[in-house]
Structures are given as structure tokens and as C-alpha cells.
């Protein structure tokens, strides 16, 4: 299978990260993969981590509550509060860390998310924009990433940055 190229860019203020990628499937299918919990659980966490949905209420004002589980059983709880949803086009929300009850972890900064889906012939382009409230927040996330070290790149980082 041909792997498509992913485009990464960062804005000058260091507050935004953008990821662009095309997927070889019609927009309805790609949309489902990004918005239905049973599908998200299958790809959202980079291996060897695994995403597990606790609850999903995909509507404006609703929430996706999930955790990422590592090979050693470590769990990181996360939640996404959906702000806007335009079916098969875009959704945005706010992503934050929390505890197993969904209580926000105020020590860790959250980040804004916007995902835009565009049909390109039979494929679908997805543009993801991650926005941090401030450079400080970005720094905090970055520092945490560094502390965990490179060996755990796929571990802590997905929890830190990656989580949607």
C-alpha cells in the first residue's frame, strides 16, 4: 500500500501546529473513522498504545471521553469537548487531560482542535490544526515531552500532543 505524504507545519508564533494528509477513501468513510468511537479506538492511539472510549456524545457541546493505555497498563485519560460540527466537512473542539472521572487536569494545558475534511476525487484530504492558548502552554507540553525522553516518544507524547 502506498503511504501518502503527510505535511506538517508550524506557525511563526509557535502556537499552532498543522497536519495535512490525504486518505484513500471517500469522505463519508473517513469522517466516520474520525467521529465514531468504535473506529477511533482502532487507530487513534499510535502503537503500542491503545485508545479506549469510555463515552462518546458526538454533537456540538458533547464529549468524547477516552483513555490511552500503554503496554505496561498505564492509563492516560483525555476528553474532547466538541464545539462545532458540520457533518462530512469539519469539526472543532477542545482537548484536555483529565482524571478517570473526567475531571479536568488543570496542571496540564489543553489545546484547541479543528479538523477539516475535503473530498479530492475519490480520496479525502484532512487538515488538522492544533492551537495552544499560549506559547507557555506549548512550552509546557514540549518540556513534558522532553522529560519523558525519546525512548518513550510514542508513549508520553501521544498522550501529550497527540491526543486529539
Amino acid at each position, binding site marked *: *500500500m502506498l503511504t501518502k505524504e503527510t505535511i*506538517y507545519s508550524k506557525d511563526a508564533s509557535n502556537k499552532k501546529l498543522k497536519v495535512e494528509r490525504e*486518505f484513500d477513501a471517500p469522505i463519508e468513510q473517513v469522517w466516520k473513522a474520525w467521529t465514531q468511537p468504535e473506529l477511533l479506538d482502532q487507530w487513534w*492511539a499510535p502503537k503500542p498504545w491503545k485508545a479506549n472510549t469510555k463515552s462518546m456524545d458526538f454533537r456540538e457541546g458533547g464529549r468524547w471521553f477516552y483513555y490511552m493505555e500503554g503496554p505496561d497498563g498505564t492509563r492516560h485519560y483525555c476528553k474532547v469537548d466538541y464545539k462545532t460540527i458540520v457533518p462530512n466537512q469539519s469539526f472543532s473542539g477542545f482537548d484536555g487531560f483529565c482524571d478517570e472521572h473526567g475531571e479536568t487536569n488543570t496542571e496540564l494545558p489543553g489545546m484547541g482542535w479543528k479538523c477539516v475534511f475535503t473530498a479530492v476525487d475519490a480520496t479525502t484530504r484532512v487538515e488538522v490544526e492544533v492551537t495552544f492558548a499560549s506559547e507557555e502552554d506549548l512550552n509546557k507540553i*514540549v518540556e513534558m515531552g522532553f522529560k519523558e525522553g525519546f525512548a518513550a516518544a510514542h508513549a508520553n507524547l501521544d498522550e501529550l500532543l497527540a491526543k486529539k
Partner: protein
Amino acid sequence: MRRDVFQAIADPTRRAILSLLALQAMTPNALADHFDSSRQAISKHIRILTECQLITQQQTGREIYYYFNSKKLKEVDKWLEQFRAMWDTRFTQLDTLLKTIKNKKS
């Protein structure tokens, strides 16, 4: 307060200082001449850049020269690399999933 590279390059003036120093080592006065900001403001930026080791200083005669430390800036790349690695993995997984869905239908 702990300084890091990301904080340092978050500021446009500091990025401009780095660009200048990447071309040649300069004294604080020569640097300040390139900006409208006060010398005081520029020395504060220089201090931050020095604290996070993006620039180093060296005394030559009576003058202090600042040098750009490119090694330190590589940290930024490393971090972006991690971010990239994670998304690459994730997207490859999504490719596989989409393919599975497609095959099931046909």
C-alpha cells in the same frame, strides 16, 4: 525561571537577533543598531537567548561578541520529529482501517 528554546524563539525580535547572529558574530551595540527597540529591551532579549544557550558570548579585547549556537536550535527539530512520528504511525493505522472497511463492503 527556567528558559527553554521554544520560549526563546517564540518572540519575533529574538528570532531576528538569531538571524543576524547566524550570519556573523556581533557586539551588543551593533545588534541593537538593527532594532528600533531600546538597548535595554535588546539586552533583555540577549539575556534570554544566552540563558537558553541559543547564543554564546566571547570576550575579544574590550568587546563582547555574541555567537549563534545552531546546535541548540536542533532541539526544535527533534521535538517536531516526535510529533511527526506519532502522527505518521497514527495515519498509517487509519489507512489500514479504511482499507479494511472498503474490503468488507466490496
